[in-house]
């Protein structure tokens, strides 16, 4: 099977540009990249179907050229329609995020502000951590580690111990 260099190069270019655009933060750009990469992938499958020939439709007589492999075509047909569905979904996402923030050209960003979000997440993690440590400390308090456990039997228990024991 021989290959058409032109199509291979075209596919590489579309992948490259698609990825380049996809790495941006704007959702619209990501969608553009997604479409380019989607088309490039279709092209890749298309390439694999071999050289061109007669269409895979049986017209009774013997075809002039050998029939093209129909399997990649079926895969691509499916891919095209799914691509469309996902595109529509991302568009709805874009609109929704814009509608939510309504911040003009900032609206369709993936992340509003990286630093703020990081800070918020760090705070959350810290809170969670603290609550876990609180639980741990409570367990230790019950077991009397580091407190006055093992005092003489006649000693009055401390207030903390009293609380813990019930």
């Amino acid at each position: 099977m021989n290959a058409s260099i032109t199509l291979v190069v075209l596919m590489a270019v579309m992948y490259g540009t698609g990825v380049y655009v996809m790495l941006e933060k704007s959702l619209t750009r990501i969608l553009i990249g997604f479409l380019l990469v989607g088309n490039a992938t279709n092209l890749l499958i298309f390439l694999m179907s071999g050289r061109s020939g007669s269409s895979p439709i049986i017209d009774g007589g013997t075809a002039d050229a050998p029939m093209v492999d129909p399997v990649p075509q079926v895969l691509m047909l499916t891919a095209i329609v799914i691509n469309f569905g996902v595109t529509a979904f991302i568009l709805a996402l874009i609109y929704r995020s814009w509608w939510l923030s309504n911040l003009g050209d900032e609206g369709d960003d993936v992340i509003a502000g990286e630093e703020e979000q990081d800070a918020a997440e760090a705070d959350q993690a810290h809170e969670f951590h603290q609550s876990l440590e609180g639980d741990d400390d409570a367990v230790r308090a019950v077991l009397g580690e580091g407190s006055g456990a093992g005092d003489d039997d006649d000693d009055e228990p401390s207030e903390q111990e009293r609380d813990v024991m019930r």
Partner: protein
Amino acid sequence: MILILLLFAGLSALTPILTRLLSTKVFYLVALLPAGAFFWTLAQSGVVLSEHAEGTASITEYVPWIPQLDIALSFRMDTLAWLLALVVTGVGALVLIYCARYFSRDEPSLGRFAALLLAFAGTMFGLVTADDIYIMFMFWEITSVLSYLLIGHYTGRKESRGAALQALLVTTFGGLAMLVGIVLLTADAGTTSIAELVADPPAGSALVTASILLILVGALSKSALVPFHFWLPAAMAAPTPVSAYLHAAAMVKAGIYLIARLAPGFADTPGWTPVLVSLGVWTMLLGAWRSLRQNDLKLLLAYGTVSQLGFLTVVVGFGTRDAALAGAALLLAHALFKATLFLVVGIIDHDEGTRDLREISGLGRRRPLLAAVALIAVASMAGIPPLLGFVAKEGVLTAFLEAGLGSADAPADPWGWVALVGVSVGSILTVAYSARFFWGAFTTKKKTTDALAGPQAHAAAHGEPAHPPARSILAAPVVLTLATIAFGLLASPLGHALESYADTMPDAETADYHLALWHGLEPALGISALIIAAGLGLFALRKPFARLQKKVPALVDASRTYWGIVRAVDQVAAHVTVFAQKGGLPQYISTILVVFVLCLGTATAFNRTWPSEFVLFDYPAQVFVAAAMAVAAVMAARATHRLAAVLLVGATGFGLVALFAFHGAPDLALTQALVETVTVVVFVLVLRRLPQKIAQHNKPVRQGRRILIGTLVGVTMGLVGFIALGARQAGGLGDELARLALEEGHGKNVVNVMLVDIRAWDTMNELSVLVVVATGVASLIFVTGRNFTIPRLRESRGRRQATNRRDLVADPHTADASPDDRQHSWLLGGRTLSPENRSLILEVLVRLVFHPAIVVSIFLLFAGHNLPGGGFAAGVLAGLALIARYLAGGRYELGETIPIGPGILLGVGMLLATGTAVGSLFAGADILTSAYFETDVPLLGHISFGTSTIFDVGVYLVVIGVILDILRALGGEVDRQQAEDDVDAAPDDHSVVADEADTRGRVASRATSGPLGRDDEARAGSGDALEEEARP
């Protein structure tokens, strides 16, 4: 046994519901099940105990489950399983009965608690009877999870949550090690049956040793041995019945059970005896030592349990027949007395409102029966005759003594002395803390003054009212205590029963010890006497001893190590998260792509199969198309205007159309062209609301990196494609598929036949994806819920019945200008648009093109089987026709065109597709098999109609539904939201809005109001005015 387990599962699931009806009485009901299991097990005694004498197998049940892995639901009840099953079901039933009085009616989440406890009893039953080691492991892990839930019963308390998590982490860590060991062992031995493993252990190799030691890690963590002992005292945060059951009688015994189970086959594994004896002795001493320092009665018992578990481990793990016999007896004894003591503590807690032994005084006088019960249990724990604890301890001491001395058949075992001395010292401490427990709980102490005032004083002092439970709560402890006494007196028959387990040990031939209350004046009796005397002496000297204890620092602080490890894991996880999840989506994609490039790049670097022959292009036009597409792609990447970028991407899509068409792929070209058009339109629908320019946030540095990654990915993909082309060896499936399509699928269009017949599963999944997408789009846009009324014009229903409908296409210019004749517009919805948004030419064009387009789409649908076309292309074409209607006439036009919701279209489409799929099942064929009806019809000629055509109609409807849903959401609803925004901005600006509100009101009242009068329409106003204006 399987039936019993199913009953447990079923009743546990029902318990929360039953609890709502019965409140605390539910415990009596659910206790019936473990009680039933207890008596069932008891009824099997004859079989289990007698059959063994003949050397035959015990009661077994076997249901294959995963034959590929040799895993089966196999259960087996031999003596050991019988003993454990009796303990877990018996104690389980008693604890459940106890719960009925322990909890008050207003206890939160009582139903959950009852269900979990019952499920736990069932799980334990399964654990001890399972014969397949993986099934056993499953039950093992379930007990860990249930114990987590039960320890954390008081979800509001910090120490509960912390202790529950700690217990879970420690025991599942052990479980994980055990799983590795189990896999190694079963892979080596070639069987998963525990009985077979033990009967015929695999030859001793390093692998077997490692696997056994790993399994022991699991057992030791479960039974809270050093260095895992710390979780058990913390677990006392659980309600007392849980402590009594899980942490005395049942779950912690799982580890002991496993050791006892494996001992007959693997006790001679290198490392087995040293590990178990040394850790066991250490645990016994450590637990007892700490127990003496506790003032909380429950914690005292908890450390005592740790100590006793160490004791048990030494005994059952020792590996001689006599030790095994003594171990089995000790296991029973411990379950009986320790559960009793925990239950007693629970009663004291309720009675006095505290568990601090320094605050309790004079309870023995107030509750003599309770004191008596506790005394007997404590005595059994201390090993005082004539109780079961004494009998067991005698057996232990004798076994170790004999092992240490050696005999004619067996050489002296130094570990025997280690065990003997360790156990003796541990027992002295045990006697001391036993005495301290009873003294602390029941005697009258001089210095405590407020205790004399009774529970009320405590209540007043601490604000938590003590609520002495009814006397019937004593039932469970009393029964357990009676068993302790009875088994002590009936030591010989009990011993006889347990011997059938002990005799499975390798040295059964040479040992002949029997359990008995009185063996005569033997060395073991002397040691016992010394232990008791020393223990009581230690108790008498408790104050100096406590001072001594304070001076001795803790040798190891396992729990601190644990906290350290947990904290370190947390921090590492946090660092990893911060490191790996920085920078949002672009960063994630970059990481994935870089890994992709590295992996595939490495693979291509080693590639040796480059295509031997290649051409620059297939045909000259290809170069031009490709060049145009490449330029469009690059420009799309650089475009700053949204619309420009979209159109350029669209150009690459249409380039593909050309390539497909030249290549011999008419179906693809058709579908791609239609889809590309729809995509661009939908894009524009959304982008009209967004700002023109795409925001630029990327710093130049990032841009360099993006270019680099993009280039690398492009080059990699190019190389991969190139190599793949050269690597292909076999020819295409074209000819074979063509034959299949014609003979089996009755169609000449191979691609279409594959979609609807040969690969119909794939298509069906795709349809599901489309339905999900449509629903997703709708839910993103219709924020307040998808409204089920389709926006329509108010008069449409009446007008459709009007007799002058035929005038619809009449020229509006010459028709009579009566304002009543509103049907004289080309598109009904057009009137709702504002004049500047309206295009009459477009309306006329759409009006004329729409119906032909639908006809063509239906033609494509049915012709697709033999010619280019098919459900997808036809559906998209019909969708395009709808889009045209919407663009020309606005969102009301959409409702007028298709007055049913997209949901119905999607549903019917899916129903047709799945219906044909399932229908073939009823005909006795495989799913999705298609059938054909062929006939000759006049005029039309030969017709072949198959179920695959119905399938294709389903595809058609789903595609239309998707496009309609997208139109309604991204088109109509966005229009509406825009109109609302405009209203906010300028209240009396746009007439559309007034009409909007008006129509919405009417849609609601349409059902009753019927055709509307002139006044109403005059109020609607603007719409009419617009129409007038539109007419020149």
